[in-house]
């Protein structure tokens, strides 16, 4: 009755490497003395991400030769798009890791004692002792593991588990900011509660689809679509709920309300990591679900997806315009980007897949880079003590004159967000909008173009603020200052900037690879 499944160890190697690193990370916490933990953790994590990237590249060549295959009794699917999504994820995670590990001014972005009461004597002692919450690294590794499984998940159960594996560490990481502990904890609570709420919907959708098809394999559900009649309700409601669960993760309206609060409250390096990587993973899963299961339902799900896409673009853009906090502005802009990406999902076209791949790469590079820069801009009080990150937009005024390099990089990322030609963002928008046009979704593209024109307004506003406005000093004598990174953040920013320019100026290679990857999904 039960048959032992065949395990394709080689194909699982990227996931296994990361999982192994995460487990080793936990053991390091247990056995390595406090002083050397951080170094060991960073090295283990970086090696694991690099190793996984190599493994993914190797699997890519194998898949190019032998074609896609199913793994572990159909739980996972190894095909070109999945591998490419994983590669993008690993690159972005590696860059984000550099930012997470950076200790500008000898302090990382995380509280030394997440469990202590903020402002308590114990916390003060821990800070003075220079303690560090190095659990951040194994948690990050677990999250990346979940993300890596997400694009390849070929059944809903695997998808659900991967969703939880990537979410649970993020809930914790969101609450570990060094400064503004209350806000950080609140972000954590909100993220957790709403995340759990949305996964309940996902699970209910899973159950309904199981009831409809008698299986949770995406391929089985897809084949059942034309066959089983009389239970359309189950199928449609199930698909809708599963899609809603995924839309929550990508931050689409009206399931976006956690995004601004969590992005603002979480430690900034984590915000960058989660904004970039979660979005990549969730879109990968959404893409697979929509393209494999629901092509036959296009007509029924289209109104829903159209409305969500339009709302997401409009609400994200409009709310970004009225924000006064830098991280919140970027959060809403990420909501708007989710809307643009949904165009590629709706297109239901091969080009949609490659478009989304390119767009996500462009968006991810700019996001990691932008948040990395946000970590470096700090407020200084009248006595010259660093108080925390400069969150309010007005504090960014005149930055162009004080740290031109930083400001120029930030402007570059903003221009990429805005989709100005010769930046990666333009290539991405071009690819996605092109796919949507080819899919015949003209009205959506018109709205998207209008929304991105309006969005350019607030990106430009920030650039104007940085370059053409006098730096302001607060009433209490506080001022904005830029701290020197330990070097890691600088490396990450430079890589992101170079990547953004390269993908914008010579997108040929990236587009070619993405086009290759869009061929055999299913």
């Amino acid at each position: 009755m039960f048959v032992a499944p065949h395990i394709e160890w080689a194909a699982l190697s990227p996931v296994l490497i990361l999982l192994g690193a995460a487990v080793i990370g936990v053991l390091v916490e247990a056995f390595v003395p406090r002083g050397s933990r951080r170094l060991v953790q960073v090295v283990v994590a970086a090696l694991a991400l690099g190793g996984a990237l190599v493994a993914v590249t190797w699997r890519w060549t194998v898949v190019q030769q032998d074609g896609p295959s199913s793994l572990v009794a159909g739980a996972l699917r190894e095909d070109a798009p999945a591998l490419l999504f994983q590669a993008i994820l690993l690159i972005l995670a590696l860059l984000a890791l550099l930012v997470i590990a950076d200790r500008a001014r000898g302090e990382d972005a995380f509280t030394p004692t997440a469990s202590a009461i903020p402002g308590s004597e114990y916390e003060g002692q821990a800070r003075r002792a220079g303690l560090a919450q190095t659990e951040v690294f194994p948690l990050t590794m677990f999250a990346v593991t979940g993300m890596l499984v997400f694009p390849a998940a070929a059944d809903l159960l695997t998808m659900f588990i991967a969703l939880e594996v990537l979410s649970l560490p993020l809930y914790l990481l969101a609450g570990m900011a060094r400064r503004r502990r209350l806000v950080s904890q609140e972000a954590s609570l909100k993220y957790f509660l709403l995340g759990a709420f949305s996964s309940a919907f996902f699970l209910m959708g899973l159950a309904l689809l199981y009831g409809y098809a008698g299986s949770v394999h995406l391929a089985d559900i897809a084949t059942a679509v034309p066959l089983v009649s009389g239970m359309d309700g189950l199928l449609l409601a199930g698909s809708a709920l599963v899609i809603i669960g995924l839309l929550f993760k990508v931050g689409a309206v009206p399931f976006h309300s956690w995004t601004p609060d969590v992005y603002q409250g979480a430690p900034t390096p984590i915000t960058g990591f989660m904004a970039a990587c979660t979005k990549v993973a969730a879109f990968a899963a959404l893409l697979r679900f929509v393209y494999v299961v629901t092509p036959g339902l296009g007509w029924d799900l289209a109104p829903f997806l159209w409305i969500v896409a339009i709302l997401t673009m409009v609400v994200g853009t409009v709310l970004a315009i009225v924000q006064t906090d830098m991280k919140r502005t970027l959060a809403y802009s990420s909501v708007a980007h989710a809307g643009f990406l949904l165009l590629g999902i709706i297109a239901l076209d091969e080009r949609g897949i490659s478009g989304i791949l390119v767009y996500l790469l462009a968006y991810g590079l700019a996001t990691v880079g932008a948040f990395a820069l946000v970590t470096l801009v700090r407020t200084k009080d009248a006595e010259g003590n660093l108080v925390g990150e400069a969150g309010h937009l007005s504090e960014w005024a005149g930055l162009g004159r004080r740290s031109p390099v930083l400001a120029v990089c930030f402007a570059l990322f903003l221009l990429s967000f805005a989709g100005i030609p010769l930046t990666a963002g333009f290539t991405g928008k071009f690819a996605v909008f092109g796919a949507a046009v080819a899919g015949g979704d003209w009205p959506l593209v018109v709205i998207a173009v209008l929304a991105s024109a309006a969005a350019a307004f607030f990106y430009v506003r920030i650039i104007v603020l940085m370059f053409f406005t006098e730096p302001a000093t607060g009433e209490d004598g506080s001022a904005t200052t830029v701290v020197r990174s330990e070097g890691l953040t600088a490396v990450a920013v430079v890589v992101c900037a170079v990547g953004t320019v390269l993908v914008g100026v010579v997108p040929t290679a990236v587009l070619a690879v993405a086009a290759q990857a869009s061929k055999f999904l299913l």
Partner: protein
Amino acid sequence: MTNPFIPILVMAALALLMAIGGVAASAVIGPKRYNKVKVDAYECGIQPSPHAMGMGRFPIKYYLVAMTFIIFDIEVVFMYPWAVAFTELAMFGLIAMLGFLFLITVPFIYEWRRGGLDWD
């Protein structure tokens, strides 16, 4: 053939009888002397915290143990289906279960080394 549920019904009736009977008997027979310890809330034998919600120290250890318990207890749920299919899965199943147990042990070691199990 009698209904297979009858033994369960009988079990339930007996359990009910014991529960109600015990309380009733102590109410009828037992001596009635009250003191502070008796009227206090019962918290698994530890000193009840004075005002659980609000002022005073929060019994964080208690929650820690509860969480540890929940997670390790629930993981065991996977052993039941494994036990059912043990023969068919044979060596593969054994190795897989050992791997699973190892993975469970890792956080246990972490908790132990970081002092999560020290009571004070």
